């Protein structure tokens, strides 16, 4: 009996290591392709295709990208602005809502929770929302439109509520009230401090949403100076392709920008910072999700 189990366990462990390694490699591989492509000479890409290791090393892609850096810097600026402002403001609202909604002495909390949650079940759809934002609120080509719609989502509010509920004992709030503190004071001095892990997690999710956003730019921004990073990248990819396709179909030679390598270099430049931050930040994501998963 014991011997059999040991055999099975060993078999399973081997299986586990092998499978996990495979999955990890699959996750990593596409990213490596892009990095490798960015450092490859354009000609060799055109001739041999993308490979894991650069056929012929070259920094041409990057040089082209940095030739006219204004646009990228601006996109960075816009995205940093929206991310910082959006996350700060959003977190302010989300934490307040989360705190209030978990308070047992807040009589209508279930009704309000449902009011918020219902928006995930049913809505007017994309078109009325778009029309409202452009026609009636006149938010076309503004920074506001990049920040305001993403401030909170029902998911994040409910998540925040769970975090606060498990981090702040009711007695603590009660005794603070007896001491004369009002709700906002309690929120400010106690809740914010004690729920830090939860706040970090939700904050990171929110920041990631803003950083990776391209959707709002695509719908509401025509002024190229206000493009968000990811949308800027999206444009570059498509434009280069578009120009190339047009050139091919009309038989025109438009000179030789190192298009392939340049797109890869652009992708690296746009995504790079997150991936740099990633090792430091992912720990919080994982931890936060972990706590949330167990408590939720």
């Amino acid at each position, binding site marked *: 009996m014991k011997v059999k189990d040991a055999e099975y366990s060993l078999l399973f462990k081997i299986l586990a290591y092998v499978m*996990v390694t495979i999955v990890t490699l*699959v996750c990593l591989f596409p990213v490596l392709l892009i990095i490798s492509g960015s450092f490859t000479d354009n000609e060799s890409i055109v001739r041999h295709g993308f490979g894991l290791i650069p056929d012929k090393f070259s920094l041409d892609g990057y040089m082209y990208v940095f030739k006219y850096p204004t646009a990228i810097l601006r996109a960075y600026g816009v995205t940093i602005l929206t991310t910082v402002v959006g996350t700060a403001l959003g977190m302010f609202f989300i934490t307040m809502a989360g705190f209030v909604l978990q*308070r047992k002495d807040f009589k*209508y909390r279930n009704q309000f929770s449902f009011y918020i949650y219902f928006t*995930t079940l049913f*809505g007017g759809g994309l078109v009325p*929302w778009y029309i409202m934002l452009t026609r009636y609120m006149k938010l076309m080509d503004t920074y506001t439109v990049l920040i305001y719609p993403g401030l909170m989502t029902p998911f994040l509010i409910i998540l925040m509520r769970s975090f606060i509920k498990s981090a702040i004992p009711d007695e603590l709030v009660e005794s603070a009230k007896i001491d004369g503190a009002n709700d906002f004071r309690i929120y400010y001095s106690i809740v914010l401090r004690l729920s830090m892990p939860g706040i970090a997690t939700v904050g990171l999710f929110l920041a990631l949403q803003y950083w990776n956003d391209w959707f709002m730019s695509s719908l509401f921004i025509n002024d190229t100076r206000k493009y968000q990073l*990811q949308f800027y990248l999206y444009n570059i*990819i498509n434009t280069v392709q578009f120009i190339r396709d047009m050139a091919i179909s009309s038989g025109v030679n438009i000179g030789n920008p190192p298009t392939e390598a340049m797109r890869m270099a652009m992708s690296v430049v746009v995504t790079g910072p997150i991936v740099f931050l990633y090792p430091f930040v992912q720990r919080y994501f994982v931890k936060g999700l972990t706590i949330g998963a167990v408590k939720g």
Partner: protein
Amino acid sequence: MTRRKGFWHEVRKNKIMFLMLLPTLLFFFINSYVPMVGIYFAFTRYNFADGLFGSPFVGFENFRFLWQSGKLMQLTLNTIGYNLAFIVLGHALAIICAILLSEIGAKFFKKLAQSIMFLPYFVSFVLINVIAYNLLNYDTGFINSLLVRWGMEKLDFYSIPWIWVFLIIFFYLWKYLGYYAVIYLAVITGISDEYFEAAKIDGANIFQRIWYITVPMLRPTFIILLLFSLGSIMKGQFELFYQLVGNNGLLFNATDILDTYVYRSIKVTFDIGMATAAGLYQSLFGFVLIMTVNAIIRRVNEDYALF
């Protein structure tokens, strides 16, 4: 003597709490509830001259058109089909991954694997567009260069619609496997060792331990995640689909979902009436679906129902 406490009494009593909640309430009012008025457009044939509220009222004409042209049916099938595949495959694979990860002893390897698996979640969908291009494009794609090296014909992926069913599912899994696996792994880590010890003593081998202890313990989490997913079954992974397929008309039949159809209607055709009709259909269908599923689950086990 009892006094009836009304809503406004409650507001006055807890003024500050209401104030703290107010921004959120306002936000959803403006962002989600007010646009519901626009559902009216679904019943008009919008034209530019008459504007939004002046266009002729055509009743269910838009819906009839969408239905009869087969568009609605196809979009529905695509949306639900893909989402079912995402949910079933996504969660099954994530659970398997989490179980495998939990059995790995080497801490460093485990942490490293978790980190790498979580990376795709971080990456934006535009980058997925780039990745797909890298792998699949005809001239320089990685796969095609491999095919050439092995003496085979190149494949023009971007004009073969049915392949994209698998490709889209693959990319979805690539992006979300790590995310869900982390969640499940967290739950598994929380399972008390005592259960496993007791099972070992009773003679259960590792497969039995997993099947009889781990899997049932994951059921509540799975059901909650499932209900969340079902709630958005009619909406899709819009960004995923749009970045992978873009405006490639050849692929629409196999890959168009309600979201991409509506989005394109805004950007390209600007047919407000039709697009709103599709959007309304999407909302309504999804709403009915989740109410039904929730009712069923509530009958089976009250604790699991969402509300």
